[in-house]
């Protein structure tokens, strides 16, 4: 009951805030888009696998929007999102077919290697990708309506919010389904899973493609919001950020992705002033502390707190 009320309150706040405080819109939009990419990492963490290269799909989605938008001189928002979904799914399938053969160290490092390859391609092939300046993303129309900047951002915000809710619900159901439960079995005992006649590779491949799509959509929305796609989208620092937020928010729960990225972006917009140059140093230290002392992240701490409170109430 309490959880439902809490979710409802959070939703109301997210709907109302852009009207009450318009300056938060950009912040919330970027946090939600990042939340989608973090959700992608969380899905793979269910199988115990860490990807240090998911920025690759983030960039794939962003550049898909940039290229198609440039070819169509704008285009249609939903069409662009569909294209980025297909492109990131294709990338996910191609790379997934290779990396799902590996676990742990190899899985993490091969993902990192692929993302570094994409990063250097985006940077080196100047005539195609605009090099490190990237490609400008033109503002598309929404259902045929061309909006000026403020209206477009507001519309994009609500579309992203709706999309995030639908996707979060979808991922929750997916993780609860046998296919999602099999991911946990990859983590705990893969051999037993194979003895049950379930192909671990296929289970992981499906999860990988789903996660590629989520990260791709996050990248596409970010590019649309910022009006720019740059090689930085594929940089390892960004992949590291996704993993960091997933662990910070709590890898055991879908809510962890969005709670984590809101908290993260919130802290960052303030801390950027305090630790202008030492930001990654702070992140690294917090990551170590969370891994060592609060492995369930913020959501885990919250659940523990709630558990303790309800025990006290009903002895």
């Amino acid at each position: 009951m309490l959880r439902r009320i809490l979710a409802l309150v959070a939703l109301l706040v997210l709907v109302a805030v852009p009207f009450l405080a318009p300056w938060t819109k950009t912040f919330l939009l970027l946090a939600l888009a990042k939340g989608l990419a973090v959700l992608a990492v969380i899905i793979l963490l269910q199988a115990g696998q860490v990807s240090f290269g998911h920025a690759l799909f983030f960039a794939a989605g962003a550049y898909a929007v940039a290229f198609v938008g440039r070819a169509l001189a704008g285009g249609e928002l939903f069409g662009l999102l569909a294209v980025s979904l297909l492109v990131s799914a294709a990338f996910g399938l191609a790379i997934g077919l290779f990396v799902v053969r590996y676990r742990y160290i190899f899985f993490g490092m091969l993902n990192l290697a692929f993302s570094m390859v994409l990063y250097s391609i985006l940077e080196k092939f100047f005539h195609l990708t605009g090099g490190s300046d990237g490609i400008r993303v033109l503002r598309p129309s929404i259902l045929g309506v061309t909006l000026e900047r403020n209206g477009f951002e507001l519309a994009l915000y609500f579309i992203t919010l709706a999309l995030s809710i639908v996707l979060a619900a979808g991922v929750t159901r997916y993780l609860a389904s046998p296919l999602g439960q099999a991911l946990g079995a990859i983590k705990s005992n893969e051999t037993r899973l194979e003895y049950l006649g379930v192909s671990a590779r296929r289970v992981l491949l499906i999860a990988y493609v789903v996660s590629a799509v989520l990260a791709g959509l996050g990248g596409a929305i970010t590019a649309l919001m910022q009006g720019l796609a740059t090689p930085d989208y594929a940089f390892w620092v960004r992949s590291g950020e996704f993993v960091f937020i997933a662990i910070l928010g709590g890898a055991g729960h879908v809510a962890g992705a969005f709670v984590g990225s809101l908290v993260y972006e919130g802290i960052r917009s303030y801390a950027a002033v305090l630790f202008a140059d030492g930001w990654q140093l702070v992140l690294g230290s917090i990551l170590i502390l969370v891994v060592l002392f609060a492995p369930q992240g913020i959501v885990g701490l919250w659940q523990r707190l709630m558990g303790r409170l309800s025990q006290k109430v009903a002895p």
Partner: protein
Amino acid sequence: MSLQTIMLAVFDGVAYAALVFLVAVGMTLVFGVMRILNVAHGSLYALGAYLAASLVLGLGASGWSPWLAYPAMAAAAAIIGVVVGGAIETLLLQRIYAKEEALQLLVTFAVFMMLENIQRLVWGVQPYFVGEPLQMLGNIELGGIAYTRYQTLLLPAVALIVLFGLRFFLRGTLTGQVILAVTEDREAATSIGVNARRVFLSTFIIGATLAALAGALAAPTTSIQPGMGADMIVLSFAVAATAGLGNIEGSALTALLIGLARSFAVYIAPELEVLTPYLIMVIVLLVRPQGLFARPEARRI
């Protein structure tokens, strides 16, 4: 492709392979003994390069003999290896040996983030150049082309000394035998009185020093700038994984293979240069997932 271009590509490739080997062998040694992949390994390479550059530039400014640059580079490697490497192992890694693999990866990744940041804080983002140690040894003429002695003789020599030194150390000395014993079976080794903790610490320091040494030696040959650590971690992983993680001799051959492939790519298809190491890795891992030189391991169940 003329003979001279081929010679040039070979010299480039060998010099490059020597450096990559030093980094990869440190990573593979640490993995072989401790079963931990140190994601921060590339940062130790970058720190070695930066510290060596600072020491060499400092020596040059204070008017000491320029030949002191070489001992200074070795000192930079040792300082980074012992101080930074030792700190990482004692403060962090010792707490996580019993944790799941994903968490171990996360912790070393966090160290990587921190070291990259510390490096930026200390040395800034502007590139450093220290060409002196490269020029002081002069050039060598081979097949009509001039190439620096530093890259054709010194770098491969150091790589070979490290390769055979490690072989001898692990198989011919008591300390080496103890390390192998812990690698084989930690519990059994501990039960006969081996201090596994100390073995882990010294192994990690050796690995870290090798990475820093590669960085220090690389300092005169390239511009030292942010991002070199991240590039090197992925590249040395590609070498170590292609060879088979934990395989020392194999990583020497693989480093040579990847180094040559890359330098030939520079002359034949420059846009593919960055991709060659990964293409080789992907092809090898598709055909032999355990790596080129590793024996397939029996499933431990």
